[in-house]
């Protein structure tokens, strides 16, 4: 049972990360390599506020969302005029910067040793201490994020984001500024990823920089590419695929020493197959050219 609940929590975290990525890559056409940086920023701020400063959980949560909105300003400033390859490079730079800061600023982030002893969330006196309770809490957060994306999907705003993806000259011709919508997309994506970071930090109660490296970013990208760009269903399907596949592989009795390598090979193989036979992913309505 605990095993299932663990998978459930991971699923919720990756659904949130996938949705945040999809907003950038699928809706706005900006493939970002900095998702793990957003995610890590959220997790580290959570850890520091809860452990070092002893803030309450609701306060931490809101501060994390605010700070993550501020933390993506460098990307907004430097990467907003790009898209495609140059945007990927600019976000890669941000990812590398954030990772090195987390790794090397020992006095604040405790460097490679990470921060441990992060308490479980306590909301208005109710503590989500046990695994059941945490899974429920993460489920609520995940549902509200899903609802947020559902509302966004129905709002006029998403049309302008898709306009940025499809034709920026048309946007300019009709007097809409593409940069404004790119900034909105990056900001929302950063905040939502940081929420996933909050869940991650409080769930494992220990974080270290290795969870927020470039590999994590690439993994988040593969989630949305496999699931499909531009739809909510796509990110959810991608997260299911990513979280459940390793569990399926466990059925084949692969020795632990080679399990992770085989897992990566299987991912790569499936990604190649998807690109060849289903370029739109499972449920996508857009693909990169």
């Amino acid at each position, binding site marked *: 049972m605990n095993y299932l609940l663990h998978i459930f929590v991971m699923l919720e975290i990756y659904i949130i990360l996938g949705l945040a990525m999809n907003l950038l890559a699928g809706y706005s056409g900006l493939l970002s390599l900095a998702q793990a940086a957003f995610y890590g920023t959220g997790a580290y701020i959570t850890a520091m506020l809860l452990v070092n400063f002893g803030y309450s959980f609701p306060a931490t949560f809101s501060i994390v969302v605010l700070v993550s909105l501020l933390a993506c300003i460098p990307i907004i400033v430097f990467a907003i005029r790009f*898209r495609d390859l140059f945007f990927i490079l600019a976000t890669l730079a941000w990812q590398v910067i954030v990772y090195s800061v987390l790794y090397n600023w020992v006095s604040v982030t405790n460097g490679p040793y990470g921060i441990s002893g992060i308490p479980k969330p306590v909301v208005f006196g109710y503590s989500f201490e046990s695994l059941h309770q945490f899974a429920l809490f993460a489920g609520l957060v995940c549902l509200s994020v899903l609802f947020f994306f559902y509302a966004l999907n129905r709002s*006029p705003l998403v049309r302008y984001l898709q*306009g940025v993806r499809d*034709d920026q*000259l048309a946007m300019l*011709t*009709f007097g809409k500024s593409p940069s404004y919508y790119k900034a909105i997309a990056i900001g929302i994506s950063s905040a939502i990823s940081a929420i996933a970071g909050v869940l991650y930090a409080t769930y494992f109660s220990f974080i270290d920089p290795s969870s927020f490296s470039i590999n994590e970013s690439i993994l988040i990208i593969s989630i949305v590419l496999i699931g499909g760009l531009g739809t909510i269903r796509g990110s959810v399907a991608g997260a299911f695929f990513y979280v459940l596949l390793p569990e399926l592989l466990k059925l084949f009795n692969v020795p632990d020493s080679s399990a992770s390598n085989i897992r990566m090979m299987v991912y790569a193989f499936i990604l190649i197959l998807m690109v060849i036979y289903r370029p739109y992913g499972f449920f996508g309505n857009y693909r990169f050219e």
Partner: protein
Amino acid sequence: MDFLEITDLSEMETILEIKGVTKSFDGLVVLDKACCSVQEGTISAFFGENGSGKTTLFHIISGFMKADVGEIFYKQLPLAHSTPAGIAHLGIGRVWQNPRICKNLSVLDNLMLASRNHPGEFLLNYFLHPFRIDQEEKMRRKIAEETAEQIALSEYLLDSAGALSFGQQKLLSIGMLLMNEATLLLLDEPFAGVNAKMIERISEVMIKLKVNGKTIMMIEHNRATAKIISDTQFFVTKGKVIEESITKVHEVSRIRANDTIEERQPPIVMRAGQLKPRASHVNLFDHDIAAINGVFL
């Protein structure tokens, strides 16, 4: 030799006046003190050979390029240091030679995207007046449906815009300008690459727009069709804009005659390589224009 001293005799107001616009690329003069004026509520056609600067003129009017020298007056007010978005807000709309539409969105969404001053455009409005956005959305949806009828696309309302034929995409981009409430429409080769039936349909739409008080400027190579529906014709040659009328045609021919007599130059032998830079400079691709304006396609 300023031909535009002679003003149009009609009583209509001048909506756009171009005064001495010069544009050169790396020393190659594309527009050389070009002057012309367009009357409100007319259709004017711009003719000229490839690379004579017609599209550059449109780029300058719509703010996608800056003129080196010269001024443009829109409704008697100068358009100085304007951005493309700013010019769109003034009501100057632009259709590109290759229709620029959002290919993954439906026709309806494309029309709604272009809608002017939709409260849903700005993030802050989602917090300040969430209900007004809903109301406006419904209202504008109705307008979009009417517009689709006007441009004969109401059957394709929910189809993705990328699936439309080339001519329908051009119609759709005209429709998007209407949604954007543009009063001066700049159409870059509306008839290029579409079949005869579609030409008829596009010109029908243009005449309907003219009746509704819109001003249309178009670049066209199909002179026969363009002459039928346009009120004024301009020729762009050697960086000058020349309005076609009987006196002026005489002027032009006189100048040409003078050219041949007084300044007869030895025939210039040009290799293909020498011609190339001109073409590549003048016919800037859309992505060059995008790059100039800080966006990417």
